[in-house]
């Protein structure tokens, strides 16, 4: 882990050196963390997770922008023995940037925030976002007290990242620099009641 930190952190913010294929990254990450409970941030991150393969342990957000990390926090505290992955975009995480401080105060060992960062608002016409205009999200996360912060520039870092995530040994944020592609959308159900009940059922909980 610290190795990744050393190799990939730059003192200069926003070194967008990598051009990771977001779909390949998300698919391989979930495959490498097969027991993970996954919360997705609206837009492209939701499509990436669905494109990797639908599973009951996925909870897809289609709205509630800025809420993905905080949903993951409540879930991680409720399920400390399960790995929780919040897979979201830079725009979604920027809207909920305060949640990084809230997570830093709680430090759930099983919570992992994976920011798929293309530096743009992909859903609305590829306007540039703050992460390509000066905000160093990894530095923000570090400043919020999130213990493990990793920047990912190549798919080759994925196995060690996944291995670390699977140890559930500390709250983690990974900023994954991906290509700003407009990929075909992969649309999961928008029925929130269904995904909620399906998710809970997978954990052994019934509806109200």
């Amino acid at each position, binding site marked *: 882990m610290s190795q990744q930190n050393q190799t990939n952190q730059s003192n200069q913010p926003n070194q967008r050196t990598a051009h990771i294929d977001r779909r390949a990254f998300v698919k391989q990450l979930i495959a490498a963390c097969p027991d993970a409970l996954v919360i997705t941030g609206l837009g492209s991150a939701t499509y990436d997770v669905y494109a990797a393969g639908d599973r009951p342990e996925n909870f897809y957000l289609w709205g509630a922008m800025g809420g993905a990390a905080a949903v993951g*926090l409540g879930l991680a505290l409720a399920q400390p023995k399960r790995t929780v992955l919040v897979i979201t975009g830079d725009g979604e995480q920027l809207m909920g940037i305060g949640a990084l401080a809230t997570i830093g105060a709680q430090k759930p060992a099983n919570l992992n925030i994976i920011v798929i960062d293309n530096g743009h608002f992909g859903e609305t016409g590829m306007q540039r976002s703050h992460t390509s205009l000066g905000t160093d999200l990894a530095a923000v996360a570090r400043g919020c007290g999130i213990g493990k912060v990793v920047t990912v520039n190549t798919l080759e870092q994925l196995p060690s990242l996944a291995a670390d995530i699977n140890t559930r040994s500390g709250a983690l944020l990974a900023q994954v620099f991906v290509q700003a592609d407009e990929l075909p959308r992969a649309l999961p159900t928008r029925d929130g009641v269904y995904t909620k009940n399906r998710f809970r059922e997978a954990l052994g909980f019934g509806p109200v």
Partner: protein
Amino acid sequence: MNSPGSAQNDLYAWREDIFSILKNGGVSQVAYVPDAGHSHVINRVHEEPGMHPIVLTTEEEGVASVCGAWLGGERAVLLMQSSGVGNCINMFSLVNNCRFPFLAIITMRGEWAEFNQWQSPMGKATQAAIELMGITVLRADRPEEVAATVSAGFDAAFEGGESVCVLLGQRLIGKKKWEGK
């Protein structure tokens, strides 16, 4: 933790009632933006081994985190003051769309002996704003109403699957905070 004198105890017993309802109801996570009116409950939650206090930077994080708790099989509630309701509006769509059981307990500002008029615009709009987002509002203005009202909201949420905000009128807290501690 209880207030020192017996008169104080009577006056503030409703605060302990709220804590008891949460504890006896099996609430595991209490997300909050602090308010003087909630301070007793917040302190009690911090002292309670089975309960997890979560301090928020802004109230909508709590809307999201209590939904996450429910996904993971736990009951969670949100404590805030009325000004925070404005911060939550779009996040309420998560509660609404997924029909999460939801309980927020909200101390009112801007409606009764308010010293700071900056609290008034959101205070006056609080109930209507919540109702516009499709969430049920219950309200208590007198100490003797608090336990029954919070309890009713609690059951509607966690037994009935509803989304409920319980407003605690500013009259309950009165002018206390402007007269010193």
